[in-house]
């Protein structure tokens, strides 16, 4: 059995590929502590986690969609639009509502439903009509954002039902509820994509569509599910963000998608599908969050920060090119 010996160390290494960013996280923690004494306090780190909770859900959603070999840009628009539409269905006209006046307790289910509907519509166009996922969701990014701007006429929604504020602002066992929610969902994602047939089906579909079909995976159904789940998670991210800020601004979520892709890609999720893990994506979110925090603490202007984020993406891409050894498309 000569062939048995050669690939074994490689396979073992592959198991740790998810953790390539851990040294980077440690390094960032050390550097942060060095640069600013307040950095390593529980308060500051909790703050980092809370700020990243909402966007991390988008990363979770995007990672699953990318692994399945698809693409969704419209998630960032859902972050603002889903909670906003839900709120407008509930609050009176004087508070910017549509005058329908549904009960306030329904606002969270409504928001999730709107998110799911947007995901389902994306899936419908991409799967049923076989349109390009990139262009479809680019158009949907614009349309869905327009669905926030249209009815609000660009105004911020201030008077919100208490129920939608709760999740983004409550503390559970000393940590923000949003952090718990994101943590649990990531745990579920790691388990689901690592240990469930349905989760592994995403890898099969993203890795080789024909092979997945030949293996009896219901490809279309799984893809619909991923898009719907993605939209729902984006709506949940919107709910958390709404609670954290106490209002729904006209730009809620706008521009997030770049960070989402950055986190997913530096976390090892391939844009070509079939590769990457949820744990990797999580480390990507943490790196971005820590960098953001450190830059703010040492007083780098928010206007200059994008230069650094962009550079991080390029460096991460180069590292993975060197580590992976394969040309990237």
């Amino acid at each position, binding site marked *: *059995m*000569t*062939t*048995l010996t*050669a*690939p*074994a160390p*490689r*396979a073992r290494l*592959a198991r740790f590929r998810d953790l390539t960013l851990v040294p980077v996280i440690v390094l960032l923690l050390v550097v942060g502590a060095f640069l600013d004494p307040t950095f390593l306090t529980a308060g500051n780190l909790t703050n980092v986690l809370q700020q990243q909770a909402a966007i991390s859900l988008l990363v979770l959603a995007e990672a699953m969609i990318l692994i399945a070999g698809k693409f969704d840009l419209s998630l960032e628009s859902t972050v603002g639009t889903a909670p906003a539409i839900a709120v407008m269905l509930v609050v009176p006209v004087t508070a910017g509502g549509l005058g329908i006046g549904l009960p306030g307790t329904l606002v969270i289910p409504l928001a999730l439903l709107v998110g799911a509907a947007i995901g389902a519509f994306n899936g419908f166009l991409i799967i049923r009509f076989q349109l390009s996922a990139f262009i479809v969701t680019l158009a949907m990014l614009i349309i869905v954002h327009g669905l926030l701007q249209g009815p609000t006429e660009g105004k911020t929604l201030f008077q919100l039902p208490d129920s939608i504020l709760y999740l983004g602002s409550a503390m559970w066992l000393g940590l923000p509820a949003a952090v718990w929610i994101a943590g649990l969902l990531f745990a579920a994602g790691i*388990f689901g994509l*690592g*240990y*469930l*047939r349905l989760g*592994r*089906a995403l*890898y*099969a579909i993203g*890795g*080789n569509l*024909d*092979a*997945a*079909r*030949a*293996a*009896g*995976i219901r490809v279309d159904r799984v893809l619909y599910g991923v898009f719907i789940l993605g939209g729902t998670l984006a709506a949940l991210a919107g709910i958390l963000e709404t609670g954290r800020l106490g209002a729904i601004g006209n730009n809620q979520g706008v521009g997030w998608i770049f960070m989402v892709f950055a986190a997913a890609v530096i976390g090892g999720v*391939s844009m070509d599908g*079939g*590769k990457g893990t949820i744990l990797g994506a999580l480390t990507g979110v943490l790196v971005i969050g820590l960098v953001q925090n450190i830059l703010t603490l040492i007083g780098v202007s928010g206007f200059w920060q994008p230069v650094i984020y962009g550079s991080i993406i390029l460096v991460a891409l180069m590292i993975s090119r060197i580590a992976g050894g394969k040309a990237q498309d």
Partner: protein
Amino acid sequence: MSIHVEARNVVKRFGPTTALNGAEIAIAEGETHALVGRNGAGKSTLVSILTGLQRPDAGEVRFSGEAAPALADRDAWRQRVACVYQKSTIIPALTVAENLFLNRQSDKGRINWRALRARARELLDTYEVDVDAQALAGDLSVEQRQLVEIARALSFGARFIILDEPTARLDGPAIERLFARMRSLREQGVTMMYISHHLDEVYQICQTVTVFRDARHVTTRAVADLPHDELVAAMTGEATAAYESRVRTPGDRLVLEGTGLTLAGRYTDVDLSVRSGEVVGLAGSASSGKVGLAETLVGLRRADTGTVAVNGARVRPGDVPAAMRAGLGFVPEDRHHEGFVPLLSVGENATFPIARKLGRFGVVSPSRRRAKAEEMIESLDIKTEGPDQPVGDLSGGNAQKVVFARALVDDPTVLVVINPTAGVDVKAKQALLGAVEDAVERGAGAVVVSDELDDLRICDRVLVMFHGRVVKDVPRGWTDHELVAVMEGIED
């Protein structure tokens, strides 16, 4: 002997094209049954119907006398028929174990990876596949991947297996190992349907052959009772003699010269020279370095040491345009990757190398291009609607003719062709070999690199490579056995 698998009167249309028109096949229990036909004869469609991936518009499929299961019942299909498809159905980013048990990693609930690996190892052992279950499938060789696919196909318990051009991606020794495996499966009573463009393989491994032509069943005969030329005649619908290579006397002028060429891991210290009016073959197994050497000659690769000269002038290493300017034309190994741009037209693809001659200041004159393209279409007999049709729409043989057109459009004095007839049918094969000989008769020198012994018959001499070295210079008049023995390193 009872009939194991039967398709009766199957009709399948895709829009305006009829892929199968009343086609039928009956495969007896335990036999290895060949299905042959030219490109477009309907073989692939029959495969997808026999494996339950597509529903026939009319007709029926029966397994051991029973009607086929419903299309949605994938498990029932997989218990009846296993298939190793032409296109790999391995997922490179996943491990071998997961590929083997794709979509059945567990009965339900959580996947137990340890147990899955153990099951995979057991399965690999059962079919004597020497592959690490934990390795990433993408790290396996083509042969190993195919063995994994065969093991997976059989693991569903099917007693009927379809092999769709399994040898297309394998080299000589690997093909022999595959055949040994197929023989042992047959001894175990497995029924097989074997699809291949290589008729000699049909004679080697199959008992019965069915010929399809133009979406119809033409004949089913015992292989032993069907001479080679009758088989070809059944496929083409006319009597076609086997390709007769022509006799010629090479000139004295050296048109291509490689001196002291070495590329680490590919070939070592190779000298090679080609005269005008001469065809030199390069033969050897996949690991012999023949393709790497040919790619160096045309400038796709750079040798570590050594020089390449075209028409006496040294060519800058690793520079394809320089080689082409010096008078070289080439047909790359994989036409889909390096041969043509599928969305561009036949005309554009065929005239890339001479674009600069078709107009001034970087502008390409459409009318001159069209005229040149029409000339090439005519001389190579390319079946196309015209120069404006995208190459992606053409059949394999015609697409390869476009690649040849590109290689020949500038009247090269040196022609290097790599696997010129891979995946093309009998008639196209003859036309392509004829094109090489035509060019040589016009005074060019040619290098033919091929896994096909038939291609090498047009060569005036064949250089056999083994582990990166040229081990023998075989003149015309060799037998298959002789050449293969040298290629395998059995004889020096």
